[in-house]
């Protein structure tokens, strides 16, 4: 039972990831642009960037821990 609300967010998250990676297919782009308000994509984008920052901080902690030992 794919709940349209949930997979909407998931799709937006996946598109945001694709954007940060820098590659996106034409088909996904058509889907993204035809569905829902851009606001959802914007908010997911900001959320993904926050996740990106958190993951880089963890990466730094990991690097320090590995070397610090």
């Amino acid at each position, binding site marked *: 039972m794919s709940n349209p609300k949930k997979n909407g967010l998931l799709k937006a998250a996946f598109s945001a990831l694709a954007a940060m990676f*820098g590659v*996106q297919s034409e088909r996904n782009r058509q889907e993204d642009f035809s569905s829902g308000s851009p606001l959802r994509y914007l908010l997911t984008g900001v959320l993904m960037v926050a996740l990106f920052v958190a993951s880089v901080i963890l990466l730094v902690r990991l690097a*320090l821990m590995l*070397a610090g030992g």
Partner: protein
Amino acid sequence: MIKRVWLLPWIGSLVSLPAAAAWDVNITPGATAISREVYDLHMTIFWICVAIGVVVFGVMFWSIIHHRKSRGAEARNFHENTAVEILWTLIPFVILIAMAIPATATLIKMYDNTDADIDIQVTGYQWKWRYQYLGQDIDFFSSLTTPNEQIDNEAPKGENYLLEVDHPLVLPVGKKIRFLFTANDVIHSWWVPDLAVKKDAIPGFINESWAIPEESGIYRGQCTELCGRGHGFMPIVVEVKPQAEFEQWLADTREATVAQAASATEEWSLEQLIEHGEQVYNTTCAACHQATGQGIPGAFPALAGSPVALGDIDAHINIVLHGKAGTAMQAFGAQLNAVDLAAVITYERNAWGNDTGDSVSPQRITELQQ
């Protein structure tokens, strides 16, 4: 004409390739383990970029030559291929991840806090450096000694033009040196390429870096943060000496300071004061008041015929010792010893037509500084 023109750019950029000795093109591997590691990082990322460049520009020039309309090339109709795009994004990603690991290792090594053998406080002033050996009560200024005539092209330029100072920073070889950076006025940055040390000296804050010079020799660097008029004229000279020579230098320097203090008690004639005063003036004061004593109108007051230089002696001494708040006049009392101060004030009162005949004795300066 069009055909041969496209050869022009290659000849153009070829002309700048090394021909004579003065064309050094790369960073120095330097004299410390860290600087060699940085050199290796630099060359690795450089060759990676060259490799990627060759591939990308190769494909590009290939298609420029072969897919030209004038050669009858027909445009294909593909304009999307996600798999290829993912591939050419992943490859640089992987290369960068591989590059990040040694870079992180070197960076972490650079932030190593183990104890140092010698701590040196480096303070940036407007347009000179001050070195203080903590715990050894050695404290001196290091200013540019390239004469103004060379800078203004009236005399031929020396070998170390703009990279020579009166008192270089002397260090022992093989020891860990810990630098503590701060500044007196604006932000400066202390950089010696051979030690791979570059840290900003910020007023009101203290920064640290370290180096273990492994070969003795003379290493030159420059201030690398814009700090006003004299930014290009405050070089850094580090002399790394074997341990025995270093200790000898420490002893000589301490002895010299004592002798300096003693000479403050001797009697100095007017001529001796003026002659020594001219040297001190040209190194320290000419930067603003100019060697001619005319200063720069609207910027720095002229000393020739100035009310201060001709007026009350104590007022003149006070302004040289304590500087003038709100202007660029620094407190030279903390920067020069009693003999230099007495000599430079006497010179200012007797040069460029100010022949007041006054002579200020070093004893007078020490008395005022009590």
